[in-house]
């Protein structure tokens, strides 16, 4: 894998901007916290647009903006960051969603105390997430992967809803314990490299060509897989998610669903398939089956929810099922489908959690039925919600369509029956989205409560628009996004074929 050294340390800069902003938040008065955080996240987003324009898309399989600083040379740990096409997409998703989340929080009435800590938590999350997606050293990756836990623990535990303590606790324990397996896996790859070549290294590039004894590779694959399966989450490791997402403040759920879950799927693609292709191939049937179970089981659970947030949370699990299924089909269409679905789900889940937050702000309840008939009074909100929900359902023109379409396409390469199974999963997602929209907007009930409600406007509307635009772009011009990562996933695939042959 080739790297192109950075002329400007772009990744470091975009990691530093939120840090600097959070230092300002800490030092300035509490009343400035909102403004400073908004400026910080905004600057990072604008900077990411510059990075996007400076990125050489014709060489998107190479790691660009690559920087490397030694941390512990004897054990081969170095702070190496850079962006290839896939990382770039995730990096862009991070900066976009962080801005949206902070923009939403500015007008969120739930956030009324300890503002400084709140904005510091979100700004630090942004830094850590960029670190996760940009790092090319496994230890550095792990450090950032774990660091995202701390601000999220606080976001859920301090500003969450009723069951916040229980949920934050559960969230932390699930993710932390599972990632200990990842730590063991990471050091074991390095130790294996030591046994093969006589030196420790944690560099992704060196570990790509690492060979393992029979059995050990599957063991290490599983160590990695446990961590990422809990993070993604894949049924049956998903039980932390509805609680964490259901009790987190709106912006917390947005970041959690839109970006934090992608850490799991991104890492599955990058590390599990990239580093252990033989094991991935061997375990493929099992993994695909787990993916399909996720889709179907989570869709059923979604239909049963009345709480808007838990509804979106379960639908996230089902979408992640699509991502995992597509990924472990191990062909080009599958990879494409899973990556585009990662980004698309980032948009739609963020949007739907904001819908839930909006409902709560107005009605102080997450019950879907409480908003019946509101299309009359809040037409703009209804239209935006419908757009996002249809996009999540996979309607052509929406963002999730390509993910689902290509998954079915990829499954068909193996077997028509498999494709039909995936299709059935897609059918359930249509069922829950339609049920959701009908309950929220179309059922007519007494109009007296709703008549006072103002439609969405201002910061919140802007936040929604920032979500809807990418959704439509993916829907109508998917090749814009495919151009980001097509070459890098081709590289992963060719590496896989090379190793297996």
């Amino acid at each position: 894998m080739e790297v192109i050294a950075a002329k400007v340390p772009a990744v470091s800069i975009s990691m530093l901007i939120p840090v600097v902003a959070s230092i300002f938040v800490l030092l300035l008065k509490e009343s400035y916290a909102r403004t400073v955080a908004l400026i910080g996240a905004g600057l990072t987003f604008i900077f990411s647009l510059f990075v996007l324009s400076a990125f050489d898309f014709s060489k998107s399989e190479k790691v660009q903006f690559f920087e490397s600083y030694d941390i512990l040379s004897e054990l081969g740990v170095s702070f190496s960051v850079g962006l290839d096409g896939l990382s770039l997409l995730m990096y862009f998703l991070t900066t976009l969603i962080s801005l949206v989340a902070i923009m939403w929080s500015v007008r969120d009435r739930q956030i009324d105390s300890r503002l400084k800590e709140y904005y510091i938590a979100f700004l630090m999350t942004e830094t850590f997430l960029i670190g996760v997606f940009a790092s090319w050293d496994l230890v550095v990756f792990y450090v950032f992967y774990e660091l995202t836990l701390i601000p999220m623990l606080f976001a859920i535990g301090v500003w969450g809803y009723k069951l916040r303590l229980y949920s934050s606790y559960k969230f932390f324990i699930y993710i932390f314990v599972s990632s200990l397996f990842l730590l063991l896996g990471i050091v074991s790859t390095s130790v294996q490299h030591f046994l093969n070549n006589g030196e420790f290294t944690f560099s992704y590039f060196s570990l790509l060509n690492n060979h393992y004894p029979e059995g050990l590779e599957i063991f290490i694959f599983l160590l990695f897989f446990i961590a990422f399966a809990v993070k993604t989450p894949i049924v049956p490791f998903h039980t932390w998610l509805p609680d964490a997402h259901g009790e987190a403040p709106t912006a917390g759920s947005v970041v959690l669903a839109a970006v934090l879950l992608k850490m799991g799927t991104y890492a599955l693609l990058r590390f599990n398939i990239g580093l252990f292709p033989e094991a991935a191939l061997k375990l493929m049937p099992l993994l695909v089956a787990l993916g399909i179970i996720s889709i179907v089981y989570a869709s059923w659970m979604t239909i049963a929810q009345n709480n808007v947030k838990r509804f979106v949370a379960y639908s996230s699990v089902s979408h992640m099922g699509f991502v995992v299924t597509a990924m472990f089909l191990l062909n080009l269409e599958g990879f494409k489908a899973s990556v585009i679905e990662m980004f698309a789900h980032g948009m739609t889940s963020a949007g739907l959690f904001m819908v839930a937050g909006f409902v709560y702000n107005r009605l102080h309840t997450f019950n879907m039925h409480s908003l019946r008939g509101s299309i009359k009074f809040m037409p703009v909100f209804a239209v935006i919600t419908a757009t996002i929900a249809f996009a999540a359902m996979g309607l052509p023109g929406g963002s999730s369509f390509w993910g689902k379409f290509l998954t079915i396409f990829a499954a068909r390469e193996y077997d028509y029956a498999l494709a039909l199974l995936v299709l059935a999963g897609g059918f359930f997602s249509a069922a829950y989205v339609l049920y959701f929209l009908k309950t929220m907007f179309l059922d007519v009930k007494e109009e007296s409560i709703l008549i006072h409600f103002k439609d969405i406007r201002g910061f919140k509307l802007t936040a929604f628009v920032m979500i809807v635009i990418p959704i439509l772009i993916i829907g109508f011009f998917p090749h814009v996004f495919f151009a980001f990562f097509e070459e890098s996933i081709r590289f992963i695939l060719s590496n896989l074929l090379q190793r297996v042959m």
Partner: protein
Amino acid sequence: MSIEALIGTVELPDLSMFLPELSVLITAFLLFSVELFVSDRVKRNLLPSITAIGLIISLIAFIFSGQNYGDTFYGNFTNDGLATLVKAVEVITTLLILAFVQRYYINKASFYGEFYYILAFTLLGAMLLASSYNLIVIYVSLELISIGFYILTALLRGSFISKEGAFKYLMLGGISIALASYGAVFMYTYAGSLDLREILTYKGEDIHYLVLGLILFLIGMAVKIGAVPFHFWLPDAYQGAPTPITALMASVGKLAFFIPLLRVMPLVEERFAIAWTLTVGVIAAFTMLYGNLVALVQRDIKRLLAYSSIANSGYILAAVAVSEEIGVKAVVYFLIVYAFMSAGSFLVVALLERNPEWENRIREFSGLRFNAPYLAFAFMVYMFALLGLPPTVGFVGKALVFMSLSLERLWWLALIMIVSTGISTGYYVRLVVLMYMKEREKEVTVPPSGRFETLSLIILTLATVALGVFPAVVWGLISSSADALFMR
């Protein structure tokens, strides 16, 4: 034989290697004499100052002793990279803890002048233990530390649990010494030497003497470090002791007691490697599981930290089981950083205890963030470090232990370590949740801390993070000292 020839055969000890110990020794005697003759009022400020100056001089002396490595005192005293590093950390930690001592005791109305020279002698024992291969010297310095700790634990006026803790410590400490010396006897029978290096490299026929001796020695040390099932004294002693002394036992004490094991590690040979790995590994597994499980149900913060200390001994022992170079490095790193983490966490408790209403209950931590934001933050850093969350030192330590286990293919031990760390999440995170996410139950006013205390806590907290982010700072020293051990 003429007197000149007789003197000529006597090899004079090279005192430059012994300078740090010498300065601590002189400080101890000085403190002893001053304590006898000076009035009580003057003592309160004079004794701590003398101790601090003595320790600082000893730190400076490391510059000289660190330049020539080798054996002196007829091979009974070994000055090498490991010894220098460990002793320097011991002196620094003692100095940092010393900052808390005076105010703590005055607040508890139990100031004793004797405290300071006993502290100095204890430190001397810890330093000697760090630099010897000789079984007799190890025995003597073990006793020196232990007797110091027995007395220091009991030195709290009007506290019953302090006496109880000290008594339990005394009983089990005696058993431990007996076992270790019994083991030493077997090793002597095997090799006819008291030097561990000669014993372990001796190619004798009766290897079972060696194995038996080593295991008894190991068990003796296991009592001292609080490994399960020899841990019964530890929670009581830690809870009963004055909190700065608890900090000292958990940091300097633990660091010192592990060194003899560490010195054995490079000498473990193929012949008895399996016995070593299995014995140490099984003890490690039980220690970490038991420590974490019991810590989960504690209500008293000092007992909780004591059980967490047992669990951490388990993690370190897991690396001791791997007698490879990376294992030695992991042990040294983990020991050094554990000294900082544990000292820091106990010292925060020592500060909180200055409030007369504080009862060391875990529930009292609720909403601590609102009453004492800086203390709460420091305590959170220590909790995350003990848990092993990056980028703190605890994470690097755990990663190194995992690396050693992975190299030796000890998967079962690694999995047990994952499970027990998972259990430990329960109580570490609960403290963070209590401090930051619960409302305060009662108003706890924390008296402002003094200059030295603040400085000491800042240094410890910074070290807990900085040594994790930039492990290279200490890694050079650790690496060279481990290499030197394996060169022999």
